[in-house]
């Protein structure tokens, strides 16, 4: 035990002595939270729209006025003929051209030409335009929509839990792998091997600090999320940290596993980069898992990030309790056991 204590202290000292580490631990969450939260929206505001008015009557001018008065649609100009309209779209100067055909006053009809490179925003833009132009009649059925858990549709509420997951994953999976490979690359591993330190002591001492740092980072991130964006935790904090402790064991196992795959830091970095990018993009941080094709959704079951992100979002935003998420916690525990076993088995061979 004494050896282990000294080893852990040594690791902590080394980590905190490294000047690059402190900014990574404290500045990175801040930057990521601020940028991601502000960027992450598919919603469209200020859609640049150009009008081609072939009619030039009072009725067509009324349509143009409606567009002009809209907050969402940004009437940027007029064109007089179709080639010019296509040009505007080709150049990307406008997202949509509203064509008011000749004879609009007698027989009202409209044509919307939309730059649909981005399909989702194109759809939203058409919805907004139809609303602004008031072309839909009364519905006989009253359709009412209600949003629960985030009635103001605040993107920050959704992004903050996801970003926190990414942060702790990077620290646990990434930095821990680098830390071990560094010893190997610089040759200090051999020195450690000839000391009476046992393998398991070495592994625990290497991983333990990152476990602690990642959990501290989670607390720091939750605090930032609350102070900067007013993201509150609806569920239980104990549940979040309990689940995070198990999740971090899985991720540290992953870090250890990555370290056994690499001899140099360059290799470790590349493997870790690759894995992290895959985990994040396949974890539902940016695009919902439910939009993926069936087989890709099944692939995400093998992604611990997906499970923990789902858990964090449900506990933080919807207020899920242990009864609602216990299955996810079991899955995380399985990940922890499997990854650590695999890593330790491989580690002996390569050590």
């Amino acid at each position, binding site marked *: 035990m004494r050896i282990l204590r000294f080893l852990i202290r040594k690791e902590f000292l080394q980590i905190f002595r490294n000047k690059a580490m402190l900014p990574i631990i404290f500045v990175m969450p801040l930057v990521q939270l601020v*940028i991601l939260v502000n960027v992450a929206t598919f919603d469209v505001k200020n859609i640049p729209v150009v009008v081609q008015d072939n009619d030039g009557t009072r009725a067509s001018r009324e349509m143009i006025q409606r567009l002009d008065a809209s907050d969402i649609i940004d009437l940027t100009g007029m064109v007089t003929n179709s080639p010019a309209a296509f040009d505007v779209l080709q150049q990307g100067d406008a997202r949509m051209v509203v064509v008011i055909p000749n004879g609009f006053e007698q027989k009202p009809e409209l044509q919307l030409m939309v730059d649909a490179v981005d399909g989702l925003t194109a759809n939203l833009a058409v919805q907004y335009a139809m609303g602004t132009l008031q072309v*839909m009649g009364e519905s006989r059925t009253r359709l009412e929509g*209600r949003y629960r858990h*985030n009635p103001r549709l605040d993107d920050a509420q959704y992004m903050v839990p996801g970003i926190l997951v990414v942060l702790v994953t990077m620290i646990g999976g990434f930095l821990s792998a680098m830390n071990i490979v560094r010893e190997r690359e610089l040759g200090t591993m051999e020195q450690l091997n000839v000391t009476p330190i046992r393998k398991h002591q070495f592994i625990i001492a290497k991983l333990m600090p990152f476990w602690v740092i990642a959990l501290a980072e989670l607390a720091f991130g939750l605090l930032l999320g609350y102070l900067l964006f007013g993201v509150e935790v609806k569920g239980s904090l104990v549940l979040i940290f309990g689940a995070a402790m198990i999740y971090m064991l899985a991720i540290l196992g992953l870090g250890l596993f990555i370290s056994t795959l690499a001899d140099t830091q360059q290799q470790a970095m*590349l*493997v870790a980069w690759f894995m992290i990018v*895959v985990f994040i993009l396949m974890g539902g941080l940016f695009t919902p898992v439910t939009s993926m*094709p069936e087989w890709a959704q099944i692939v995400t079951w093998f992604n611990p990030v997906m499970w923990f992100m789902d858990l964090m979002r449900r506990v933080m935003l919807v207020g899920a309790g242990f009864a609602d998420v216990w299955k996810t916690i079991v899955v995380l525990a399985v990940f922890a056991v499997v990854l650590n076993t695999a890593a330790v088995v491989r580690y002996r061979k390569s050590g």
Partner: protein
Amino acid sequence: MRAFWGFVRKEFYHIFRDKRTLMILFGMPVVQLLLFGYAIRNELTSADLAVWDQSNDVVTRELTGKLFASGTFKLAAVIHSEDEIEDLFRKGIARQVVVFGPDFANRRARGTAEILMITDASDPNMAQVLQGATQSILSDARPTMNVSVRMLYNPQLKSANLFVPGLIALILMLVSALMTSISITREKELGTMETLLASPLSPVDIILGKVIPYLILSLVNVCSVLFIARFVFDVPFIGSITLFFVEAFLFTLTALALGIVISTKAKTQQVAMMVALAGLLLPTILLSGLIYPVDNMPAPLYALSHMVPARWFLDIVRGIMLKGNGIAELWPQTLILVGMTVALITVSLKNLNIRLD
């Protein structure tokens, strides 16, 4: 000159000898493109929807059938009381509950029927799309005039057409900038830079020799990525392929120059990696319009996005592939990339102080 080509050859050997790095260099882009091309989608497909049908008559059953016929929604649960809604959301079983009011058929005849959509808005983007889609299926409002909508450039609204060209930028950025910055920093960290400096090669030669192999490898990657985009994802390629390769070459140069700038600053591989991570990967994914449209960003971030090379390259790639743009439309973006490359190379030459401490 012979010494220089010898050095380039040595760099190639280094890369090709290291099987793992090689696999990453060529395998990673292919795997990433395949994975993300399929995984990064924001279309609404088979979203979990629950139904609470309070009247359960002919009309509501027909409407329910209509909801699930399109493949947009998938029936996750049928519920019978208000209390069950929260439980569905907490367990993550359904994202939205559609509630048909009581006595629906009769009330509809009188025009007072009610449908309520209750949506778990913890994902606000999705929540909006869900309600929009539900509304367009269930609403019986008729338009007052005929509106024809023409979706240009991507008529089926496939998100692969949006994201796959974007991923080309991400992959080029990763391979070129990350690999060069690490490979140069590695020489510094391991101390072999001293050996190189003592050789008759000038520092500029050393950097060029480091960069040329990655430039060639990146162009090979461009080809394989383009092949997958065309034949696996069916992404159209309307514009000129020559122009595409010229622009890809230019963007690779920009990325390599960025990598050199990072390596002149960083002392250890760890630092180089972290800078590349914070300075390249995140902006390339987030501030370039790869996933989220640039137009919606708040002003400071919108301004910042202009500094991200990938933003301009994305315009170019999507323009060439989907819109059939030529240089007549794309010269501003091209000019900006040229400017960035020149600026980055100038900066790196200024900082190129690989002297011994």
